């Protein structure tokens, strides 16, 4: 990337702590437009998150955001990006892990829900839109897309328009009793016995 100086001074305490905790596992430190990004391996993200939250002089207690970026031509393919904020000390930092081996359909990243409860919905959103599995997440379900959706829309190989899903992709339009392809439209399929796991209005 352009405009990169390694080892910035802007958020030196955080970078120093990350190096102290992870040693050589701090893969990269990037400074761009006054913002610090620390890149670490996925396996150690929880350890670092815990250390940053509990460090008495930093106290990153507020997880502002988790999102992901898809780089289809790169291995590992995905960036998972964490924006941290400290309410007591006003420090900010961006953490980043890179995940996804070649040909790996759904890469795994450890969940940080044990560190910040806020990660629950953020990680569900990333799972829903990118298909990244967060290991240890208490309730990893789709959050924005319908539960019977089959792919992950924010991936770069998912076209903006003209995408033909196996018909019918939206269970609500299925004539009653007609069989569906396996795994499609299960949530909205209406059968005499009701939908497995759905709430029965009669009871």
């Amino acid at each position, binding site marked *: *990337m*352009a*405009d990169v100086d390694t080892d910035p001074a802007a958020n030196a305490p955080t970078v120093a702590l990350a190096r102290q905790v992870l040693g050589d596992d701090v893969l990269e430190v990037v400074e*761009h*437009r006054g*913002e610090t*990004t620390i890149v670490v391996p996925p396996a150690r993200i929880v350890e670092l998150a815990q250390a940053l939250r509990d460090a008495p002089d930093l106290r990153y*207690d*507020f*997880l*502002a*955001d988790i*999102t992901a*970026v*898809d780089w289809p031509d790169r291995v590992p393919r995905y960036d998972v*990006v964490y*924006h941290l904020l400290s*309410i007591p000390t*006003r420090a*900010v930092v*961006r953490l980043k892990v890179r995940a996804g081996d070649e040909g790996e359909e759904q890469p795994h990243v450890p969940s940080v829900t044990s560190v*910040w*409860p*806020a990660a*629950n*919905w*953020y990680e569900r959103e990333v799972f829903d*839109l990118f298909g990244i599995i967060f290991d240890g997440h208490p309730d990893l379900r*789709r*959050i*924005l*897309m*319908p539960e019977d959706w089959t792919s992950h*829309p*924010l991936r770069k190989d*998912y076209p*903006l328009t003209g995408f033909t899903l196996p018909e019918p992709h939206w269970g609500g339009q299925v004539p009653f009793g007609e069989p569906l392809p396996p795994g499609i439209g299960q949530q909205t399929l209406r059968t*005499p*016995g*009701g939908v497995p796991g759905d*709430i*029965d*209005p009669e*009871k």
Partner: protein
Amino acid sequence: MQLDEQRTLETESSVQIDATRREDTMTINMGPQHPSTHGVLRLILTLEGETVVKAIPEIGYLHTGIEKTAEAKSYFQALVVTDRMDYLAPLSNNLGYSLAVEKLLGITDAIPPKAQVARVALVELQRIASHLVWLGTHALDLGAQSVFLYAFREREMILDIFELCSGVRLMTSYIMPGGLQADLPAGFDAKVRDFIKIFPARLREYHDLLTNNRLWINRTKGIGPLTAEQAIAFGASGPVLRGSGVAWDVRKMFPYSGYETYDFDIPVGTNGDTYDRYLVRMLEMDQSLRIVQQALDRMPEGRWQVDDPKIVPPPKWQIATNMESLIHHFKLFTEGYRPPAGEVYQRIESPKGELGFYLVSDGSARPYRMHVRGASFANLQALPTMIEGQLLSDVVASIGSIDIVLGEVDR
């Protein structure tokens, strides 16, 4: 025969379900077509008598793929989709996006003073407008119908101001990367001053209607409690966080657009209940009015856009007379500008809380990735904590007190 078999099956399955459920609880569905879920929020509530023991919010009914859409547009065009997220505060979205793009371009310091001051005045008016909708609908949910009518009367005045500036009442796209779409119109100052003159008395009327109203206090005091620790843990921001007693406002902590030069206070609650969140927003409207007043008093003359035809279109008269301007205009609208590769995160204090724009550029003319950290999204995550253990009739009060906009939650 077949019917009999079916009936047996049904009975068996219902017995199975009953065995796993507690017999004294009932699960009900609330929304997405429920008038007081402020859009299309769906809640699955498990009740024990009238007490909520478990609440599961289901969202996504208004998911429009705005982040995906923005990836297919130039930086200039993507501004328009940001309006549609928090549709009660489009100017705040415009500002957050514009600041992020400006940071990406590295032109943050080049924004002319007039644009800076006008932006502050406009987003503070927007904050009042957004809070008025919240006030009206929140009161309506709890049965105070007249507040709704009064609140919309004042909001109308603000929308008239926006219409004067941009020609549009809601989806303004008026604040754009590099400044404003157009100069502030003649009559802007007078119209805003009219509003400033009228509004304090109107705000007092709302206080008269609700703040000491016994019914209002009964319906909101102690309802939907959220401690400061819980609010921070769930990533709640804005009035929800401040209502819980945390003095945190992005305008003060990470000032943008010159907020550090304005004199205003941050109202903070103590109990973290619905009443405190109500008071925080009511007092915030006072503070916003103060900021608007200061912005008007110091409104400088001069340019309203950066002096860079690569980023903002040249004026129309130049296009007709100047070859270079014509080329700039053509290049800007066919191709757009190319920020250097990199990533930025810009946070602003929207009426709902911390609105964050995460933009990734790969050096091309379209955002490689635009992610929006919707304030309502994070705030809504705290809803189950607020309503579990409370009465069913108070669920509506708690939802209203978060001030969610589903357009921003689902994006």
